[in-house]
């Protein structure tokens, strides 16, 4: 052990006697993604310790869920990961359906995939743009939002809302797609595809971006698993896990027949289904660059999935069916289901006493676990690396604080 620490090139002794300083980063800080407060213990520019303080956005969402019927709680799930509200709706709806052993129609299933994957693109676009902002470049942020706006336009047309949709609901979806929507969606995908190259040029392969992210905040496989990280953060460390493939049957059944490859580095390379920029030489598996890159890959992956879903959905005859009644009684018992939200594995747990109102509701937030690893990653980094690392975890405070 002594030998190990001694060889650690990170340990440097300065001649100057220095004092440590406590700095509050947040809750009002440009790069803490909402109201996260980080208390940094720094020695000059070097951060020796980071402690996240959360709870500034706590709204008792879980407790509210215990006073509403299952479908009435859907709008509250919107406000968890408000950047991927569709996926939150989906997670809760599936959990309730699991308890009720309810199965939605084939057409609704494909529509759910379509909508959820489209929202995954939107969420990753925000993550990508905001990450650029964290590293001090503003333009990619607006490029990302420009495309996200188009997705929001599509959503608006489908369900009338642009941020908090409540579209996917228990027993199906609130409405079917309006006519002509699919063509618009395809048009969007066609024009969006070449723009991804722009993002790669502006960020992924940019020399300064690589310098700022490669080999920064390296998280080993073991660390990622120990802290319960999930989603792109987990896959960025090289762990091959994706709930859409490895999850419970009721969830994976949704993706039955869909071809997609989990965006993770296997045998030293990423999936080669499309043309991607090469991994820079400095990047180490598990660093900020890889987490970012996995997100970029998932954007392409989700585009593929959306295309497939469009085909399947339009091939389906009939209607998507009606969602369950607001007061539909649930059987007594409990159910827990984790789904693959854009930020990671989002779990919902509910216990029912036989009424329409769940007796207990709990949510397992992916961002919560992903943020928990930040102190480990930030130990010994520079102040400028703190936004880079926290940004690469792509957290949403609405989901952490619930």
């Amino acid at each position, binding site marked *: 052990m002594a030998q190990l620490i001694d060889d650690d090139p990170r340990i440097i002794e300065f001649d100057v006697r220095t004092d440590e300083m406590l700095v509050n980063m947040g809750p009002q800080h440009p790069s803490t993604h909402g109201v996260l407060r980080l208390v940094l*213990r720094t020695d000059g520019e070097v951060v020796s310790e980071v402690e996240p303080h959360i709870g500034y956005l706590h709204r008792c969402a879980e407790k509210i869920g215990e006073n509403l019927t299952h479908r009435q709680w859907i709008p509250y799930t919107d406000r968890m990961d408000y950047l991927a509200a569709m996926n939150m709706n989906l997670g809760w709806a599936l959990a309730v359906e699991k308890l009720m052993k309810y199965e939605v129609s084939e057409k609704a299933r494909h529509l759910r995939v379509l909508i959820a994957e489209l929202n995954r693109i939107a969420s990753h676009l925000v993550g990508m743009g905001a990450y650029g902002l964290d590293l001090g470049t503003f333009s990619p942020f607006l490029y990302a939002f420009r495309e996200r706006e188009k997705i929001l336009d599509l959503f608006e047309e489908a369900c009338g809302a642009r941020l908090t949709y409540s579209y996917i609901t228990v027993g199906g979806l609130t409405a079917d797609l309006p006519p002509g929507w699919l063509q618009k969606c395809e048009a969007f995908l066609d024009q969006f595809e070449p723009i991804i190259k722009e993002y790669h040029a502006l960020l992924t392969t940019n020399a300064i971006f690589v310098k700022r992210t490669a080999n920064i905040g390296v998280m080993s496989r073991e660390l990622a698993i120990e802290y319960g990280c999930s989603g792109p953060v987990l896959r960025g460390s090289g762990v091959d896990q994706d709930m859409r493939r490895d999850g419970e049957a009721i969830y994976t059944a949704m993706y039955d027949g869909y071809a997609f490859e989990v965006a993770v580095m296997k045998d030293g390379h990423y999936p080669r289904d499309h043309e991607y920029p090469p991994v820079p030489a400095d990047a180490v598996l598990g660093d900020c660059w890889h987490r970012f890159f996995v997100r970029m890959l998932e954007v392409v992956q989700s585009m593929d999935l959306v295309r497939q879903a469009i085909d399947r959905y339009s091939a389906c005859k009939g209607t998507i069916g009606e969602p369950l009644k607001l007061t539909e009684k649930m059987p007594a018992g409990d159910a827990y289901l984790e789904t693959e939200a854009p930020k990671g594995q989002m779990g919902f747990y509910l216990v029912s006493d036989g009424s329409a109102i769940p007796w207990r509701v709990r949510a397992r937030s992916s961002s919560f676990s992903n943020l928990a690893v930040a102190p480990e990653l930030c130990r010994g980094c520079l102040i400028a690396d703190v936004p880079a690392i926290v940004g690469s975890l792509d957290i949403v405070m609405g989901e952490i604080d619930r």
Partner: protein
Amino acid sequence: MMAAMSATGLVATALPLAAINWHSTFFLLFAVLACVCAVAVVAADNVVRMALYLVLSLGATAGLFFLAGAEFVGAMQLMIYVGGTLVLLVFGVMLTAQAPFVSIKTAPGDRALAGIVGASLLAVLLLSAFSVEEWRKPAAGVVGEPTATPIGMALLGVRVDEPPAHAPAGVRSGYLLPFEIVSVHLLVVLVAAAYLARAKRRKTPRAIEVAASVEPPASVAAHAAIGREPAGRSGSVLVGGPR
């Protein structure tokens, strides 16, 4: 108001304004600035303020150099002296910033004593400054454009300027040797400064102790840490990833 205006008009008419000598006026401006700021350095207690006054004083002195036609020396003063003071300022902030705006007070007795001694010293200096007739005579007038060429040539060992009137023959040398000596001297200082400021790799066992101390305490309440006395322990920290 009216009285002030009429008084102004009176003075304005009474004084030979046409004979304003701008050179002298600017001299006065810079001289007053330099002197007042120099005194302020003595009077101030806060290091950063002292440094600010010092910078202003040095800058005003550079202005005096420009007025005296020593443009190169003036620019040099701005660049080196003032730049050097900048570092001083940074050190001032770093070394005394345990609490905001700490000042190490001077005892009033010391100050009074210094005032007396300083006043007498100033008196002696002023006496000598005014003692030579030649120094008191006003300047003869404007001479040709100053150039930095003679200084440059002199530093290369060649004198192209006119010798002073009373200069004995044979003592006019270039400054190549001093120039080289100063260069080497500065190099030595540079190396020494780099040596002092360099980051050292830690030898053996203390690494463990330090690495352990970097580990977070079991419950690090920020408030408790804020209340902690500034330990001032010799810094040894983890820097970045394995770059």
